[in-house]
């Protein structure tokens, strides 16, 4: 279980997360929606321990990310995919994927490489094993980024606007893979602006507004007139996003 309890995070006088609580059960796909600056990415960055909390608690399978001793264990349980890929530029696709399994999990190189090849094949990049990030398209880079996160066998996959830097064609390459992962039962926390896609794959949808979590509903309910759409802010957001 991934539990976020009353998390507060401020940058100077700007409160970015204001008492956010959220629970993600194994197997669930939870999408976080909200306009830019609502705190979505910061929430992900708090879960994986990049940002330090000002108050509250986040536990990943009972490991508390706010405790330096438990952070390493917590991090082993989550994998992050980034908006701007953040691949290691000096390493091939294969090495990008095998680095952490070999160095952190101490897996034998041959085993780690075999798994990495299988992962790359599963996202249609079997011929890009020895290619460097600079030689890949954006969509291909992000697919490598997903493989890199999956190679650590995370219990929770954190996806931070993973298609925001991609054109529509590349976006669909990446979304197809995420849909497959969702079908296979991968637990995901998904920050996105792809509302239609989120509607298809999510179990629940959370809406953030100025750092506050204003609703947390099963997907169907979120999109129903009596549920999420009854909230003026959500209705306004959805109509704007769907027009765009």
């Amino acid at each position: 279980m991934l539990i976020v309890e009353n998390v507060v995070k401020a940058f100077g006088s700007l409160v970015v997360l204001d008492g956010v609580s959220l629970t993600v059960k194994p197997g669930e796909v939870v999408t976080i929606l909200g306009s830019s600056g609502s705190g979505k990415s910061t929430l992900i960055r708090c879960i994986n321990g990049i940002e330090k909390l000002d108050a509250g608690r986040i536990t990943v399978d009972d490991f508390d990310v706010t405790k330096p001793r438990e952070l390493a264990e917590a991090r082993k349980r989550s994998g992050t995919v980034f908006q701007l890929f953040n691949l290691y530029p000096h390493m091939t696709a294969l090495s990008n994927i095998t680095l952490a399994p070999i160095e952190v999990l101490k897996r034998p190189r041959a085993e780690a490489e075999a798994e990495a090849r299988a992962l790359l094949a599963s996202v249609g990049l079997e011929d890009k094993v020895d290619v460097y990030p600079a030689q890949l398209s954006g969509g291909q880079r992000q697919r490598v980024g997903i493989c890199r996160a999956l190679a650590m066998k995370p219990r929770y996959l954190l996806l931070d606007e993973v298609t925001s830097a991609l054109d529509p064609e590349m976006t669909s390459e990446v979304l197809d893979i995420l849909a497959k992962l969702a079908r296979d039962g991968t637990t995901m926390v998904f920050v996105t602006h792809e509302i239609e896609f989120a509607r298809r794959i999510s179990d629940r949808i959370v809406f953030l507004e100025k750092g506050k979590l204003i609703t947390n509903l099963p997907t169907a309910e979120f999109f129903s007139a009596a549920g999420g759409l009854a909230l003026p802010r959500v209705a306004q957001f959805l109509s704007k996003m769907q027009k765009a």
Partner: protein
Amino acid sequence: MRLDLSLLIPYIGLLAEGAVMTLEIAVLSLAGSVVLGMVVAIARAGKSATMRRIAFFYADVFRNVPFIVQLFFFYYGLPEIGIYIDAFTTGVVALSIAGGAYASDVIRAGILAIDDGILEAAEVSGLSRRKIFTLIVLPIALRTSVRPLGSVLINIILTSSVLSTITLNELTGQARIVSSDTFRPFEVYVVLLAVYGVLTYLVSTGVSMLHRRLNRDLQPEVN
């Protein structure tokens, strides 16, 4: 007067000895300045304020004092307080310290240029700080700093000619001897110009090759 290089033939061995010593000094000082530059760059980009201050102080002092003054201080000054170091070691140490100040600048720039996102990706994957540094930060920083490090190296080779002032018979030192032996400074220094030119050309070609190798993933027009 005509240029007559043949009169230098008896002195080829002497000049070659000098060239070999220049090469030895260059290789040792390069290693010294890169290692020192790396350590200082780490300190300058690091977390400890004290270390940062010491590192900045070092880089500032040695970039802002003429090399020949540093050299004389080590070679003629230190014996006054009981520290004797032979000329060769003094030369290599002085060049390493001076070169290290410049190298630290170059490597530090390479470290600071690394995208934060890449470091965050490494951090959340669970890699230790040390692993992140040796496997991610340093290799990426070196990729971008090989070329400017090459200029530092070339400067070390050129500056090594100053070591002739502390009795060291490297290339320039030997040339001075040959010149006063033959009374033909024109020929001697024509040869010297050519040898330094060739030496630094070879080095810069090597640096370019290394740069291309380290950045082999990038498109040709970027190299």
